[in-house]
């Protein structure tokens, strides 16, 4: 029911992505300007590193006492007239949301950006039950039109080019009229971002007013005040949550933090790590339904709180992943992500955080490629505002795969044979000597080999440098020592 999983086909997905010219164009932006803006804004803030440490401390503290903070959050939320719905599984969350929508006789719901609703496959589920969800974040709206999942956790449509967006709008907005020109159909679209944004705003504007329910995510849950917090750049979340009669915030348990003080600490590193902004354009706190003295706001305020395996991560090697604030810095800086984009990972969370988290959520057998498809360059850990040891977690998954024999036999035997030799130096020396003699002979003329049996992965795209000489360093060193004596 939740998003279609293709993680098991990672290799094929990646091969396809490597041949997609539009994706390659889009990835240049992520690897270039987006990654460098993070560096610049971080540099402008002398206490950036100290703030990261503080953020880690806050999150670690919360994770130790998460039960207390969640209960406090519920108390405060209830006191302000909101209602908390505890949901263990995606199914429970979907059913809860559907029941809430039905209680309002909802036909149309507007949605702010939420990765948790992707995780539970909410849109498809609502559609099946006769309710139309409309994404209001521009990126989410674009991929909704394209019937695609997000390819990046903060830039869901980063893989789409302007030309593709213009085409989608032409197809999906046949009645769209040019601004200030009533009766004039827009026709072939300009690919100017400003024009396209205006069109999306115009189309979505009506939806905000028509919606019966507004569903948003929540970046943070404040235990002290019972408030949910969203961080956006478009203001769409505010319209989504304040215009309809019912606001449902869908979030997950690890988003809770103690108080507003902590919020301000983490906000200072979130946007800088994500888009390289000092702050996102909108930071909105929802503190319950409309009070009698309020002029506007929803009549009902619900928080749907998902676990989906998160509480099982507490106290394990996976616990640090619960510090994640979903900024996307790890993918913005990942060489593998830059090559294959987000869809190749085959589930909701792509990039290094996905490679570390997805095996837990969708099963290691299905996601076994993800923690393996990393060079362990360590850049993700370097940029993660929450200092999550992503390579260590990926290695932990590799250990699980090795133990449970999920790693393909050929790879496992290869490593075990090699390890056997490494544990028997004489055997290793013998094997190394023979291999090096052979490689040296084959590659002597050119100093390199253009192809090599069993190493097609290397030689399809690169030459294989031949060994410098027919003998190893160790044997050369030994004969030199012998001669010197």
């Amino acid at each position: 029911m939740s998003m279609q999983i293709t993680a098991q086909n990672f290799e094929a997905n990646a091969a396809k992505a490597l041949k997609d010219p539009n994706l390659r164009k889009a990835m240049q932006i992520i690897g270039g300007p987006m990654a460098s803006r993070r560096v610049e804004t971080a540099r402008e803030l002398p206490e950036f590193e100290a703030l990261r440490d503080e953020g880690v401390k806050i999150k670690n503290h919360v994770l130790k006492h998460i039960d207390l903070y969640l209960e406090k959050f519920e108390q405060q939320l209830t006191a302000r007239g909101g209602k908390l719905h505890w949901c263990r599984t995606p199914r429970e969350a979907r059913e809860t949301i559907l029941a809430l929508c039905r209680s309002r006789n909802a036909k149309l719901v507007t949605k702010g950006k939420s990765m948790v609703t992707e995780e539970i496959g909410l849109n498809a589920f609502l559609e099946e039950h006769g309710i139309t969800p409309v994404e209001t974040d521009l990126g989410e709206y674009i991929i909704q039109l394209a019937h695609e999942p997000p390819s990046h956790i903060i830039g869901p449509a980063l893989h789409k080019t302007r030309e593709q967006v213009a085409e989608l709008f032409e197809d999906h907005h046949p009645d769209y009229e040019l601004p200030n020109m009533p009766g004039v159909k827009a026709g072939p679209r300009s690919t100017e971002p400003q024009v396209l944004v205006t069109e999306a705003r115009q189309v979505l504007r009506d939806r905000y007013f028509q919606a019966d329910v507004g569903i948003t995510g929540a970046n943070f849950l404040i235990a002290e005040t019972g408030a949910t917090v969203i961080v956006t750049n478009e203001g769409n979340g505010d319209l989504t949550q304040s215009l309809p009669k019912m606001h449902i915030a869908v979030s997950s348990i690890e988003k809770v933090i103690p108080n507003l003080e902590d919020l301000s600490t983490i906000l200072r590193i979130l946007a800088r790590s994500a888009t390289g902004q000092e702050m996102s354009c909108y930071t909105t706190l929802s503190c319950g339904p409309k009070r009698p003295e309020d002029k506007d706001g929803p009549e009902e305020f619900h928080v749907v709180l998902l676990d989906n395996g998160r509480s099982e991560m507490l106290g394990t090697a996976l616990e640090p992943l619960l510090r994640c604030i979903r900024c996307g810095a790890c993918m913005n800086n990942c060489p593998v992500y830059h090559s294959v984009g987000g869809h190749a990972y085959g589930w909701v969370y792509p990039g290094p955080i996905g490679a570390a988290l997805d095996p837990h959520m969708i099963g290691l057998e299905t996601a076994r490629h993800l923690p393996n498809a990393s060079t362990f360059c360590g850049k993700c850990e370097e940029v993660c505002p929450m200092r999550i040891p992503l390579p260590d977690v990926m290695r932990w998954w590799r250990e699980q795969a090795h133990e449970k024999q999920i790693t393909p036999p050929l790879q496992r035997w290869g490593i075990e044979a090699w390890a056997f030799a490494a544990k028997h130096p004489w055997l290793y020396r013998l094997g190394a000597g023979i291999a090096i003699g052979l490689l040296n002979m084959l590659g002597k003329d050119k100093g390199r080999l253009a192809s090599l049996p069993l190493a097609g992965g290397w030689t399809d795209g690169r030459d294989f440098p031949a060994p410098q000489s027919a003998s190893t360093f160790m044997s050369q060193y030994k004969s030199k020592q012998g001669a010197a004596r």
Partner: protein
Amino acid sequence: MSQIDSKPRVALFVTCLVDLFRPSVGFAAIKLMEDAGCVVEVPEAQVCCGQPAYNSGDRNDTAAIAKQVIEVFEDYDYVVAPSGSCGGMIKDHYPALFAAEPDWQRRAEDLSGRMHELTSFLVDVLKIQSVQTAPQDVKITYHDSCSGLRELGVKAQPRALLESVQGLELVEMQTPETCCGFGGTFCVKYGEISTDIVSRKTADINATGADLLLAGDMGCLLNMAGKLKREGSPVQVRHVAEVLAGMTDLPAIGESSLGESK
């Protein structure tokens, strides 16, 4: 600690790739450390640091291999590797392998304290500011290998030593710290992705206009050299130790003694 004539007694951890593919790097490392006043030995019983097993999830074999390494290098003042990757494995990851074996953990930590990457050893430990090498009139660019950079903080040290070689001109890449896509077994298991990553790297290298690419890790060097040669790039590739030791008479990586179109 045992010292002969108060000279530090240093063991060279050769590393598999130097042993197999580029012996001259081992000899260059020995020369650099001897020039700096060390007594250098190469324990014969050494093999691999265990990283291939470690990163493949084979923790038992990794621990067994690590114990061998710990034993072989127990008696030296320092252990030095011409690699940030193998150096980082021993210095950063060994102690964590023995959480359940306190005695081995103590020995792993002891080795960790004595373990250094070559350029970091010369600059940070021996406080060497310059190397004694004949002038070399070459435009170079330097790739920061991931493990050396992020696990061991190797960044300024090789540059400081290179600066002391007369005639060398360093032209930095746009992204010298970006991974080359080697990644150990990754380069074969996910060859297409690895090739794509290294092609971004070689574009960056070529754009510098440098004649010579240097780095401190053979894995990255073999990968980048392999791609540059496949592309027909004139950029030559060497380990930084070869240049610092002035041992550049042998052909560059992926080139032949029978001559190369430059």
